[in-house]
């Protein structure tokens, strides 16, 4: 049985921690080198022979090099699973870009000349896709990406990081896998919808009720494990088991919904952010609040043997209200 020695970025995020727990139960995983910006205690797991932790600020180029040619080489890491993207949508600027894009680019380039690494798996997101009226509502991997010049940095960075990895596919000696995951509706997972549903009243565009697809934590972890177990490379959509209209989502979350004319929504949500400090940004979500965007997971079913299986727990756990 071949074993994997894994470097996992974003290890202290909820998905990262859950993944580490799952990997420690997997006999094919020889060692997990978990990487995060927080102290090791935030991982909440005992370090030992199969789990080590490095506190690294991936925004710094020197730190990235030290990580790969220091601890990663010492532990004979064979696979990088890169999940670290900045989660707060309200933040922007060069330092955010450094984490989202430059870290991805450099980790990939460093891995190419690394003596032991031969695989690079990038956890991208469905936010990279362009959702408009005249494009398919069921989104396959060839769907146009959101390259609009007016797209917010949160989206631009994700598209750039995704493309940075995709352009190396077939050119690099590494086996490269990109997973474009549906939104994982969980706290602290960078979910815009989760923040949206924190308000007791959810505003949505009058006259539109698009279909959404959501990923549970269980399926998110399972898709990453299947990617680790797979020798293939390519781009794969990772849909979730919950496909439902926005209105139904709001109802299931136990929130009151108020449809309003589109021009009012942006200012009202900006006001809410200014007064209550929400991370939800309407400008990031306005298109998908109008037009359906459901991931087509058939390639992942064929290539990774991944099929969504676990529905979200309704009502959502960990939510206030």
């Amino acid at each position, binding site marked *: 049985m071949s074993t994997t020695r894994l470097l996992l970025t974003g290890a202290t995020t909820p998905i990262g921690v859950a993944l580490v727990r799952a990997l420690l139960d997997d006999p094919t995983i020889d060692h997990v080198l978990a990487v995060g910006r927080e102290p090791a205690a935030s991982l909440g797991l005992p370090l030992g022979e199969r789990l080590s932790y490095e506190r690294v600020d991936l925004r710094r180029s020197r730190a990235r090099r030290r990580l790969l040619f220091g601890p990663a080489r010492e532990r004979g890491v064979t696979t990088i699973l890169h999940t670290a993207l900045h989660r707060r949508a309200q933040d922007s600027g060069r330092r955010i870009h450094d984490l989202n894009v430059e870290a991805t680019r450099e980790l990939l380039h460093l891995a190419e000349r690394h003596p032991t690494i031969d695989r690079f798996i990038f956890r991208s997101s469905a936010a990279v896709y362009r959702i408009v009226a005249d494009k*398919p*509502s*069921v989104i396959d991997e060839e769907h146009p990406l959101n390259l609009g010049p007016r797209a917010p940095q949160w989206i631009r960075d994700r598209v750039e990081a995704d493309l940075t990895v995709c352009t190396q596919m077939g050119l690099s000696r590494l086996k490269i896998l990109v997973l474009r995951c549906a939104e994982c509706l969980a706290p602290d997972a960078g979910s815009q919808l989760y923040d949206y549903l924190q308000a007791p009243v959810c505003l949505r565009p009058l006259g539109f009720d698009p279909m959404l697809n959501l990923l549970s934590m269980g399926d998110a972890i399972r898709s990453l494990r299947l990617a680790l177990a797979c020798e293939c490379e390519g781009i794969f959509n990772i849909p979730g088991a919950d496909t*439902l209209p926005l209105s*139904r989502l709001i109802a299931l979350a136990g929130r009151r919904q108020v449809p309003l004319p589109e021009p009012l929504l942006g200012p009202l949500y900006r006001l809410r952010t200014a007064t209550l400090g929400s991370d939800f940004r309407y400008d990031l979500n306005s298109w998908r609040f109008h037009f359906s965007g459901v991931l087509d997971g058939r390639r992942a079913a064929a290539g990774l043997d991944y099929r969504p299986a676990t529905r979200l727990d309704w009502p959502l756990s960990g939510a206030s209200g």
Partner: protein
Amino acid sequence: MVASTRPSLAARIAARARAALPLDWREQVESLRYADAGHGFDSLGLHPDTVAFGAQALRFLYERYFRVRSSGAENIPGEGPAILASNHSGALPFDGAMIYLDVLRKSRPARVVRPVLDLFVPGLPFVSTFFARLGAIGGSRGTVRYALEQGELLLIFPEGTEGIGKNFSQRYQLQRWRVGHVELAIRYGAPVVPVAVIGAEEQWPQIARLDSVHVLGIPYLPLLLTPLPLPVRYHILYGEPVDFRGRLTPQDADDPEKVAAAAAQVKAAVAELIAKGLAEREGIFR
């Protein structure tokens, strides 16, 4: 968060509409098969309760106003991908609605036909959502391809807006016949059922159209002779399916000449059905 257990207003209305349907309609609606994507909707937005509501809401038009008669419904395949290709007219797509209801009523086993909408329709408020819940899909190539791969029955008007926007003087003259439906049929092995709608071409006489006026993305503004559509009688004729599978391979969908010839065959079949329907009817309102 506490999940709402009380059905929404829309759900309650849909449930009442379903209960109010006559038994034969209700049996058809309740026997519909659809790929539930998890919450009672399919991936493209179809919702059976809204289908029931739509049937109840539009049944008056179907049974009383346009008094639809149809023949050849046995030509609609009972399962698997298939395409209904019809002439198109009438200023507003009542012809699509009547075909939709007729297929719902008469297909055995019951099927929902998925009308393929022009690209501007998903951008229309209310209309886009209601149509999606009824099963209509946006006309982008990817969505149509997905629907066929899922074995859906599609309704395509190859004339597009040129058909629905034609003037009264052009009634029953097929306009430029696009070839996309035939490309899809060849590539995905879907039979094409030619359909003729008689009556819709006279329902709302259009005397001119303003091509420079675009409201909500609609490509033109029609100038109509009457404030409401006329209560013409609809006759819907379904022809024998045209199946390309024996003659053409999926690769032939990339051959423009073969595609054009296949589209011409479908167009001729529709034209023949129109001629038959016009010859058989006793009058516009009868």
